[in-house]
């Protein structure tokens, strides 16, 4: 099987998302796509505002864990047929997107539920870390809420 790329350097831009949407035109049996985008928030921590997040990843393990998540979702939701996931590494500024999940299937209900579950599994299982960087270049290691 072809090895999928799950990591992208820098933010996920609209042209990348558009490319994934356009790709699905080839499969005319699909009836629904659920898309999740995770955006970097300008959280205030103490008195400082988050300016960017610097993501680091254990790249080889990310591939394995993403593959496991895809298998879990495809086994559980029979109506789901395609999963696309991209996560940023490196710098992503507040306001830019760092996570893209697109679940494609026959109908809306399973794609919606599967999309939400996929995002939760990514947060729980995928070895990615965020460093929240302030304007003065000081930082804090992020925690998932």
């Amino acid at each position, binding site marked *: 099987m072809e090895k999928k790329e799950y990591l992208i350097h820098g933010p996920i831009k609209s042209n990348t998302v558009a490319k994934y949407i356009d790709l699905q035109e080839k499969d005319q049996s699909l009836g629904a796509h659920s898309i999740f985008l*995770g955006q970097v928030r300008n959280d205030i921590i103490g008195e400082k505002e988050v300016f960017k997040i610097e*993501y*680091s*990843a*254990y790249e*080889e*393990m990310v591939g*394995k864990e993403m593959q496991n998540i895809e298998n879990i979702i495809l086994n559980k939701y029979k109506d789901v047929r395609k999963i696309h996931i991209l*996560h940023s590494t490196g710098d992503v500024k507040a306001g830019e997107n*760092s*996570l893209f999940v697109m679940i494609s299937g026959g109908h809306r209900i399973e794609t919606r539920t599967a999309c939400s579950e996929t*995002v939760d599994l*990514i*947060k*729980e*299982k*995928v*070895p*990615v*870390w*965020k*460093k929240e960087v302030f304007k003065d270049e000081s930082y804090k*290691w*992020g*925690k*998932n809420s």
Partner: protein
Amino acid sequence: MNIKVLYFGVIADITGKQEDSFSEFASVKNLLNFLENRFPDLKRSKYQISVNQEIKKEEFIFNNNDEVALLPPFSGG
């Protein structure tokens, strides 16, 4: 037993580097005893261990050329 050890996130801040190589440890437990002595802040940190990208327990016995990683709580997304 040669092993490569990778440090990520806040753990890399504590150790001051991103990787190490060791040959004197037989198990995850041996390695962690050594590291927690050398870097006392590790004792106060939460982390999991992976060997060849799979989460393992302290009892795990190394094989030659294993890739070990100290993984603080994930915070992707």
